[in-house]
């Protein structure tokens, strides 16, 4: 076979919490190296639980997850953190060291890397996320939310995982900050070849950045495909309690006008308008 085998394979995954709540049911899909995926769905649909299964924090109740040839049930923490990194929705749930530098060094130190390599990785991660110099010895809690999120991402990057999952990267950010974070994730994806998975409710952001969308509802996957295609499936979106971005809704509002129902951005809409009114 010449085709590259998938980086992550999820087979018949089910997950129940100790109190018996079934958070994931019958989940099967594959992720290739270098994808940019948006995981979307209503609050409580299972998105965060699925992410925590992917990085081995939760072990499947039924089925298996194979990450780069390793079953998450058998993978040690050290093996898993090198494969899949998870950035918490609220950076404050993850940051606990006294300086940003120590925060980023915590992971590499924890997997017992030699001091020199720890330093090299921290400097590299700081450079990639662009943390200003004054912040390095600052306590993370004195930074803005946007900077704290960068520290949280840097501390994951320092472990050099192939896959980076970011839970609600744009919550609480204004549009300019959101675009900055997303452009940064896009750069990690395109330049540094990381696989990126974002969990988000921000549909315009999904339309602009994600190439593939996985939509969840009630512990199951309801749709999985190209962003453009998923946003045209009105019946599926209704089931997942989602709506496409407003610009896509406008393109779909009256099919007789001739706009592509999979329109994702304002610019695409303007281009079509020019064609249609020629």
């Amino acid at each position: 076979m010449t085709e590259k085998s998938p980086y992550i394979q999820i087979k018949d995954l089910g997950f129940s919490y100790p109190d018996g709540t079934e958070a994931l049911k019958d989940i099967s899909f594959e992720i290739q190296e270098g994808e940019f995926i948006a995981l979307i769905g209503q609050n409580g649909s299972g998105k965060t639980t699925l992410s925590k299964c992917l990085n081995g924090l939760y072990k499947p109740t039924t089925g298996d997850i194979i990450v780069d040839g390793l079953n998450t049930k058998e993978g040690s923490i050290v093996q898993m953190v090198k494969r899949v990194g998870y950035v918490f929705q609220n950076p404050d749930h993850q940051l606990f060291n006294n300086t940003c530098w120590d925060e980023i060094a915590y992971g590499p130190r924890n997997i017992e890397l030699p001091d020199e390599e720890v330093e090299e990785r921290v400097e590299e991660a700081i450079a990639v996320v662009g943390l200003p110099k004054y912040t390095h010895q600052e306590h993370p809690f004195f930074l803005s939310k946007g900077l704290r999120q960068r520290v949280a991402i840097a501390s994951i990057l320092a472990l050099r995982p192939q896959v980076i999952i970011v839970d609600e990267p744009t919550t609480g950010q204004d549009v300019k900050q959101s675009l900055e974070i997303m452009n940064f994730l896009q750069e990690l994806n395109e330049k540094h070849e990381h696989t990126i998975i974002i969990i988000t409710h921000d549909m315009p952001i999904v339309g602009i950045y994600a190439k593939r969308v996985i939509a969840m509802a009630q512990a199951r996957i309801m749709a999985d495909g190209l962003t453009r295609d998923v946003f045209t499936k009105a019946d599926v979106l209704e089931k997942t309690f989602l709506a496409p971005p407003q610009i896509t809704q406008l393109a779909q509002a009256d099919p007789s006008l001739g706009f592509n129902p999979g329109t994702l951005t304002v610019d695409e809409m303007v281009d079509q308008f020019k064609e249609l009114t020629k």
Partner: protein
Amino acid sequence: MTSVIEIKDYTWRYLHTESPALNSINLTIEEGSFVGIIGPNGAGKTTLAYSVDGLIPGQYNGIKKGTVKIFGKEVESYKKGELQQVVGVVFSDPEAQFTAMTVEDELVFGMENIGLTIPEIRERLEWVTELTGLSDLLLKPPYEISGGQKQRVALAAVLAMKPKLLILDEPTSMLDPVSRKKIFEVLKILKTEEDNTIVVIEHSLENLVPLADQMILMADSEIILQDRTKDFFKESGLLLEKGVYPPGALHFFHELSNQGLYRGEYPLTVEQGKDLLRQLIQ
């Protein structure tokens, strides 16, 4: 008409900071109006909300100039706790306001505090759980429910106090699109049936714009634009420059107008946008 909020030449600087968080603010909001406040993070939106419900200057140290009047009376001259019965604030971080062990206790806490009778509490509890769809969660601990559910509890707890002036600071930041819409449906009911004055601070404008009578843009500690919603968005160029993106349909018509392809009013909803497109294309 009574002014609910009347702010004159108001400047506030937090202690140990160099520049004011709010600078020369003048703002009047009439009773029964629905106002949206937008602007980048750090513009002073939340500080403005704190100034109106008395947290500033009560709980924060700083230097104040000018006056902030609520229902005609300066915030400093309200007795302790009195202002909070008139003004309700829903914070962007719901956990910051939780104190109780169950959602039900959380909703009842504020009402007990202002001395409502048990039948009155019961009645309001029923009203507010129905309105915000929380009946299934009443017995759960507020820290065990999802982020979106927390935001609904935070809103319900404030609504139960029936404040005449309701301020919501990013009330839907953690919500999925459908839950987000539901919150705004609740606000719509309050606007049309209950005659509250409502001020919403938001980054996501799709749901806010169709409801708001007027909009305010804040940036760099100042109010830089304030107008009736329709007229406000004529300045979409300025909004984009300040990093505020209008809703998709409106943004599209603004782009058309920029490129000389459209002249006229911008649509505030997808429905209005569709009608305009029909006229332009057919």
